[in-house]
């Protein structure tokens, strides 16, 4: 029985994928390089902003934001964390990471919120989108690192692209959930007073979904931060670098301080954005 013999590979899916990616690289490389441009621009802008600004100003900015949105305790924690990171000699890497994370989150929001709104308003769209989101959340990032590098070459921008793939699902899901959680009576009331479909969205659904959208943004931010090390594997800069270097050369100390800085940054950004979401 040929069909019960699993010794041989019957479906050569691996080589099909290989050929497909090669075909993409040969024929559409320009297109993919084009996609990089807006990401590159925003990243460069942010990186320039955070690295040229005197550290004191950056620390002040974050501390004030923490104080305004999350209270005194978080503000003090922010202040101490940034000083510690600076004294560990990781200031520049931290700034690059912030620039990377902010631009990843920006593009996630740009793509994810409209997708979430559409999936919140259409059952069919949601049914189509759901398996894609499941795949994005479950495929290990290492699987798509190779095609990303082949299409976009190595560097920070490729790192951000991989991060976007990984961090996009929460913002889409939570936006969709927020839209769906709006009471049908409120939509009915808006319609009864002559709201158009666009007005229902702008004046009822989006404002009421805002807490959920902000929670999605926070989750996306956290996931983007957790991609920092993996992104460093394909040449992205930032705090992932000391970790990867430490791994490669068995320098446990270097990897540890990189990891510590990532954790501190994650906590600071999480508390600040959660405070913003509560507003």
């Amino acid at each position, binding site marked *: 029985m040929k069909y019960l013999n699993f010794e041989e590979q019957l479906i050569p899916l691996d080589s099909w994928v290989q050929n497909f990616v090669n075909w993409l690289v040969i024929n559409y490389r320009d297109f993919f390089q084009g996609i990089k441009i807006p990401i590159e621009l925003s990243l460069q802008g942010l990186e320039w902003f955070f690295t040229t600004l005197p550290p004191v100003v950056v620390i002040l900015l974050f501390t004030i934001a923490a104080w305004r949105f999350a209270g005194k305790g978080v503000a003090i924690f922010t202040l101490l964390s940034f000083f510690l990171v600076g004294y560990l000699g990781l200031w520049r890497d931290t700034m690059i990471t912030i620039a990377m994370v902010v631009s990843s989150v920006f593009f996630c929001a740009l793509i994810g919120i409209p997708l979430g709104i559409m999936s919140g308003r259409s059952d069919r769209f949601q049914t189509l989108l759901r398996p894609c989101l499941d795949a994005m959340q479950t495929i290990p990032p290492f699987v798509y690192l190779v095609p990303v590098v082949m299409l976009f070459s190595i560097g920070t921008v490729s790192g951000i692209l991989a991060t976007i793939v990984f961090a996009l699902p929460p913002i889409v899901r939570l936006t969709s959930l927020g839209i769906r959680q709006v009471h049908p009576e*409120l939509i*009915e009331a808006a319609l009864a007073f*002559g709201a158009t479909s666009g007005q229902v969205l702008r004046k009822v659904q989006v404002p009421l979904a805002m807490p959920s959208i902000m929670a999605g943004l926070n989750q996306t931010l956290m996931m983007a931060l957790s991609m920092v090390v993996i992104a460093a594997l394909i040449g992205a800069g930032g705090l992932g670098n000391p970790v990867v270097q430490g791994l490669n050369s068995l320098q446990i100390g270097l990897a540890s301080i990189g990891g510590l800085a990532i954790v501190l940054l994650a906590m600071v950004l999480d508390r600040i954005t959660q405070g913003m979401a509560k507003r």
Partner: protein
Amino acid sequence: MDQNIKISVKNLYKVFGTNIKQAMKMLDQGHDKDVIHEKTGSTVGVQAADFDIRTGEIFVIMGLSGSGKSTMVRMLNRLIEPTAGQVLIDGEDITAMTDDQLVKMRRKKMSMVFQSFALMPHLTVVQNAAFGLELDGADKQMREDRALEALDQVGLAPYAQSFPKELSGGMQQRVGLARGLAVDPDILLMDEAFSALDPLIRTEMQDELLKLQAKVKRTVVFISHDLDEAMRIGDRIAIMEGGRVVQVGTPEEILQNPADDYVRAFFRGVDPTNILTAGDIATDSQVTIIATDGKNPRAALQRLIKNDREYGYVIDSERKYLGLVSADGLRELIDHSDREQRLTDAYINEVSPAPASASMQDILPEVAAHPSPLPIIDDNGKYLGAISKNLFLKTLHRNQPEETADADQVAVEGV
């Protein structure tokens, strides 16, 4: 087109489900909605509804849950798309309107008040009241002015900057009402608007509505499952059962002449009628006039005027019931009769007393037929008291004990 008709519902159907064509066909063949549901899986919401709503009246659509009344009101502004039939508003068929026309009609002509209030939690009270105007693109100053004016009408102007969740249920519904009034609509659709409120607040809101209606006559379509409410505020009532409109008429017409057992069952209601007799509910709070030989119509009239009553019940010194007189009747007798005036000449002969043992159903036609409370006598012909329409209805709905006291008071005021 009749000027007086604001909304005309013509042969309106709504079928929910996937197999609508077949369901409609079965309806045509006269199948029952339960059979249709079993065969096709589709639910008949409203069938063959046909009635007119007049300009400036409060038209109550009454029915139990599942009778299709909520579906009906949503077809009047096409929140629910009718399956077949027409809804004409000022002679225009809204089922044929484009989306743009429909949006315009909803903004200019009608507004809606909801059972669940449906206020926007992210907007302040004044922003909620201005919601309809905002959708219409009115500038900020104008819409806030009009919203404040509307809030003032319902007595909530001081709360303009609060958020809905800071207000009580009754106050929230006042905001809902203000939102409906701010756009100055011809038609106000009220979907069980007061059903979620507790009885005292509900009555208060009904009064509020009647007060507003006395100032500016709008066409109000009011959905209710509460007979008391329907009788209290309705100029006319439509009764729905199983998606069908079974009867349309004034409260008196329906009370007097129920179209079928379903309507009758409504009036039997929670049903004290089988247990309580006329003697049980009659109250001796009406004016009695003792007809001794010396009593003349003038003295009787004086007594009615002094007590501010329209009707007096004439009894003898043994409390035996003799007859019923009205203030108007007495006045007429005094003004126009030149011969010797006797009280017996003023008796209203159409009203005959009912025995105390009569059931509530027995006396229903009599109570409904006459404006005066119905006199009740015992086996020996002794006057026990009288039953007004209001007292009758209150008794039917005497679920809460505190309403009994209220009912007596209403009877004292007369109908």
